[in-house]
């Protein structure tokens, strides 16, 4: 590890190790662990090895293998941990979703509400395959991440379209975050996360000097000029609009947070952070005072168990907390908990509660650390990247990923109000899986460029005779 970090930050002609074999070894673990988990669920639920175990193991192995070969070919110097981490989380997610598919309780709940109960795991497996295909597509088609820079303003338009689209579609489950065509529905915000990061990176790379330097000093803070406040105000307004019209607290928080982080990195001005925090506080309090949807969320967060006394609102958070508590330190073991008591969204937004109950504190912390590692590899990629666009894009994507994990996990664990986003890779949902595989692909591409040895400098005959004279 230390050799890789030193070699990524300095340009050396020796050629750093590509670490592809490390990645392969790690991938083996990332496939084997979910296969064991799968067997564990089968044994716990029906005392026999699940029949689909072989095909599941082979399928996951195949996806990981193809991913690895493509990385080897198209991004040979890429970070060795990102692909195994994503594979492991995706694989565990499949096991957890399959485990919840077996829940009689969820099937009955669906039946009593008139839904035909469908197993989610086969769909998720298909989404995973599509996600890996997406990942491969990005690696093969995107020769260099700097190409994305050309599409700065197209990205902006694209992001706007993606964010605004759900307004024209009916709300589902109290939030307007879906675009439904026939029986097919996507969550455009998941994709917008990536597109908007491209726009921010391109825009801030161009404007960073203006934003950083043209400012007045006041009480130790560099105050930006009025006209430079424009972009942050626009993004802020967008976030508020998403919150009001799409009642989507999570997405709104995610975009604003990502923008403030990227703005701060681009300009190195702490004042932006202060402004960002102030504005999000004003926005959140302002919207919460007149938007009943947000108020409900806050109330449910302040007293999750009040629902049992008042009969108002949802018991999901209370159920999630009891699932975590019942899991305790070691958990009940896969397939042996009752996290399906959460009912609706048990396998998507609330999937972490199943981890909490069945794998316990130990398992949950491990999962959280896996997410932490992905973010850490992303930040390291940003540090190693040699071009400002790459740095900004990498930090933007990693921060977005980190904030998303915090917002979802924090919401499910009752640390912050629940926002209704999905745990990347773990939760059920096609848009989320596809978008996150694309996100990992872009990070891998940037890290490949960052760690690729620079072309050897042209030999200079008098290089050795150069003397440095210090005054």
């Amino acid at each position, binding site marked *: 590890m230390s050799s890789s970090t030193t070699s990524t930050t300095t340009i050396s002609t020796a050629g750093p190790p590509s670490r592809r074999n490390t990645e392969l070894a790690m991938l083996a673990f990332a496939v084997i662990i979910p296969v064991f988990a799968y067997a564990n669920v089968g044994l716990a639920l029906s005392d026999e090895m699940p029949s689909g175990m072989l095909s599941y193991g082979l399928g996951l192995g195949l996806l990981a293998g193809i991913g690895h070969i493509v990385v080897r070919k198209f991004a040979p110097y890429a970070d060795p941990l990102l692909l195994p981490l994503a594979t492991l989380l995706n694989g565990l997610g499949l096991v957890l979703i399959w485990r919840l598919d077996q829940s009689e309780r969820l099937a009955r709940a669906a039946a009593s509400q008139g839904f035909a109960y469908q197993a989610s795991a086969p769909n998720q497996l298909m989404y995973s395959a599509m996600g890996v295909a997406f990942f491969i597509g990005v690696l093969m088609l995107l020769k260099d991440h700097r190409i994305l820079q050309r599409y700065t303003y197209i990205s902006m338009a694209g992001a706007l379209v993606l964010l605004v689209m759900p307004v024209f579609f009916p709300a589902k489950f109290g939030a307007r975050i879906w675009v439904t065509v026939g029986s097919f529905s996507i969550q455009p915000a998941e994709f917008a996360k990536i597109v908007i990061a491209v726009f921010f990176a391109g825009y801030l790379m161009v404007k960073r000097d203006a934003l950083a330097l043209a400012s007045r000093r006041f009480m130790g803070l560099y105050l930006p000029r009025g006209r430079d406040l424009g972009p942050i105000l626009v993004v802020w307004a967008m976030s508020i609009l998403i919150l009001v019209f799409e009642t989507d607290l999570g997405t709104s928080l995610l975009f604003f947070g990502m923008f403030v*982080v990227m703005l701060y*990195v681009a300009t*190195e001005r702490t004042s932006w952070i202060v402004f960002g925090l102030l504005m999000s506080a004003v926005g959140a309090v302002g919207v919460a005072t007149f938007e009943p949807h947000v108020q409900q969320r806050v109330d449910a967060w302040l007293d999750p168990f009040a629902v*049992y006394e008042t009969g108002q609102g949802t018991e999901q958070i209370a159920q999630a907390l*009891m699932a975590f508590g019942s899991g*305790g330190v070691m958990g009940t073991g896969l397939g042996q908990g*009752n996290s399906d008591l959460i009912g609706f969204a048990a396998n998507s937004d609330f999937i972490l509660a199943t981890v909490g109950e069945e794998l316990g504190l130990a398992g949950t912390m491990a999962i959280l650390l896996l997410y932490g590692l992905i*973010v850490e590899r992303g930040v390291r990629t940003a540090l190693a990247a040699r071009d400002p666009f790459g740095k900004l894009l990498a930090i933007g994507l990693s921060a977005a990923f980190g904030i998303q994990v915090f917002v979802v996990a924090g919401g499910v664990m009752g640390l912050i109000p629940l926002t209704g986003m999905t745990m990347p890779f773990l939760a059920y949902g096609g848009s989320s899986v596809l978008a996150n595989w694309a996100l990992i692909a872009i990070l891998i591409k940037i890290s490949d460029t960052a760690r690729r040895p620079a072309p050897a400098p042209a030999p200079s005959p008098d290089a050795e005779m150069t003397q440095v004279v210090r005054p």
Partner: protein
Amino acid sequence: MNKPLRRIAIFCGLLVLALLVRDNWIQFVQADELADHKHNRRVEIARYSQPRGNIIVDGKAITGSKETNGTDFKYKRTYTDGEMWAPVTGYASQVYGATQLENLHDGILTGDDDRLFFNRTLDMITGKSKKGGDVITTLNAKAQKAAFQGLGSKKGAVAALDPRTGKILALASTPSYDPSTIAGGSKKDEEEWKRLDEKNNKDVPMLNRALRQTYPPGSTFKVVTAAAALENGLYDSIDEKTNSPLPWKLPLTTGQPLPNEGNIPCKDASLKLALQVSCNTVFGKISDDLGNEKMIEQAEKFGFNETVDTPVRTAASVYPEDNRPQNAMAGIGQASNRATPLQMAMVTAAIANDGKMMKPYMVDKLRAPNLNVVEQTEPDEMSRPMSSETAHKLQDMMENVVEKGTGTSARISGVTVGGKTGTAQRGVANSEKPYAWFISYAKGEDGSPVAVAVVVEDSQASRGDISGGGLAAPIAKSVMKAVLDSEK
């Protein structure tokens, strides 16, 4: 740009750290609290995931478990003769929780009790599923049946004790309910629960009248007053004349004198005669002569003014501080003093047991699934409300009541029986139907094996028929007979 990048890295680290801290908080610090939260269905799910241990009377289980096809609960509680045993078992419902023995010994019945830890671990190692232990009661099935059938469709309660040990032999309360009907989680159970609910049912079938309902004790309280008189030396002999004028007015009052039930020879009657014919004037005056303080003292020695854990907690019977006329009325059980049927059975048992009052209990043993005894209740002396001489005098008086007095309908041929009737008036100017009381004990070869208190709250019978002797005494008699028969 690397300096801000490093700071963002720290920021992301803090986000993950916050999640980890929160996770430790809910899964370690608060874990038990959340796991046992009253809204956590897992508690109920675990409780009914295996057959529950049983409550046992005379070697036979009066409870059972039935496998169901519900999603959450694998087993459901069943009861044999649920209505008869409900005052003993309480209920264990998948939806409405548990009460009485089902609740108090839940740990043993589910197998979760700490004392079953070794069993549990052994089962886990050998791969057996967890099993619950049994609660073995002191009750006597025949006596219980006699009590329950005696009450029949009447509203009332019976408590019977073994005076020598304090074992509860019968505990009946009517109208009752069948706990089987509310054990499950179906629509039918819910309707039944609503029907039984105090708010919707003025008969309050779920009230355990034998332990938790206090009634004015009426004339049965005269034995307590008599005990106080003898213990405090107001009178030494039960045959000497008492200083009892007739008519007698309540102290500090003007107006009508205190009436007796008919024209009975109460003027200066001896204690024995006064109890035989149930003189209000004699015992009212004794209570007044002794004063409120001494009466409270004697009542408390018998267990008034405190609850008893049998282990099901009783309502406290009361003998309050009061003014002189009220205290005099309390001496004949017609004022603000109130008693549970169990309390009056305890008074009777103390007299029958020569002055030694044993603590009443209904759980003999707790038994582990492997039949090892986890806990055995030993008889425990609760108090000595009177000397044995006083007790013998009272026995003499009570046996006289059954022989010649108001309690003749409790006579059992060949057995010495002592008893006392009571008819507690109710409502303004006795406008409501009175409570019919009867307390009695029977003697065996070796002390007295049974003391019983019966109260019949209300009856379809006509007013004139309501008297302790007519309504309650036959029930007491059949309970005593049942116990005597099973002693043989």
